């Protein structure tokens, strides 16, 4: 079994209220030098059998259609875990 990692981030132009609140919390506990936090998602897909280019392509389609919403998010990377 192989694990494929898909990472999704909110689009940079969008306000990320959760990231902003987290940045403020970090700044409160000594992270004054941390100016910004953006929170994204990491999906680990366990795949039965070989991860062929076709399987990766299928996962790419699913990442764009379901794992992310292209209006508000970008798929940053799709890769096989080491």
């Amino acid at each position, binding site marked *: 079994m192989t694990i494929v990692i898909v990472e999704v981030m*909110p689009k940079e132009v*969008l306000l990320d*209220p*959760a990231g*902003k*609140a987290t940045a403020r919390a970090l700044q409160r506990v000594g992270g004054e030098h941390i100016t910004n936090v953006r929170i994204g998602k990491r999906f680990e897909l366990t795949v039965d059998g070989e991860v062929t280019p076709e399987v990766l392509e299928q996962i790419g389609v699913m990442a764009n259609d*379901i794992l992310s*919403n292209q*209006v*508000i998010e970008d798929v940053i990377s799709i890769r096989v875990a080491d």
Partner: protein
Amino acid sequence: MRVGVVTFPGSLDDRDALRAIKLAGGEPVSLWHSEHDLHGVDAIVLPGGFSYGDYLRCGAIAAHSPIMTDVVDAANRGMPVLGICNGFQVLVEAHLLAGGLIRNDHGTFIRRDQKLRVENTDTAWTSGYSVGQEITIPLKNGEGGFIADDETLAQLEGEGLVVFRYVDVNPNGSLNDIAGIRNARGNVVGLMPHPEHAVEAGFGPNTSVAMKSGTDGLAMFQSVLAASIFS
């Protein structure tokens, strides 16, 4: 006229929507997310709540549930579809409406009686209002910030697809104070505030006349009874 309300796992306001349809004079019909059966309804409401626990993204998993294939087909044929709150989120995730909804800019859940301005009455769900009319209905959401890229926003504004706008207070950071939008055809409408919670005196928002007497949401459900297939 038969108006269906889809119940997803985690829907909260499906019963209120069914009741609103009945009070408006329609025949309410319960629809179930895992079926491929619209039970011969003439219009559909996607209710508020937290379908699938808002996992992945609000409305995202519901948008891929079995019945949504049939809802999308029906909408594309012209059947009136109204998405309220989580239902609005489902409609944007299903690409029946443009844009997206993100966490409120202030980061907290908000519940208030919200004043809206009706911007467009050329839809299956707003023909009973007048343009510029101000209505007050409850709002309650954590992720109601409407966003769209510049091009989409210009299109929504330019083509008159903004149906409701927040008045006095923008409760969630929505761009251009947008509270609700429609598709080009006018049969699909989505909004964050809850018309189904303002349909019966005694249970609605306060008004200058009496406490809890607001029924400004009722016209939305009455509007759809006037047009079974909107083309």
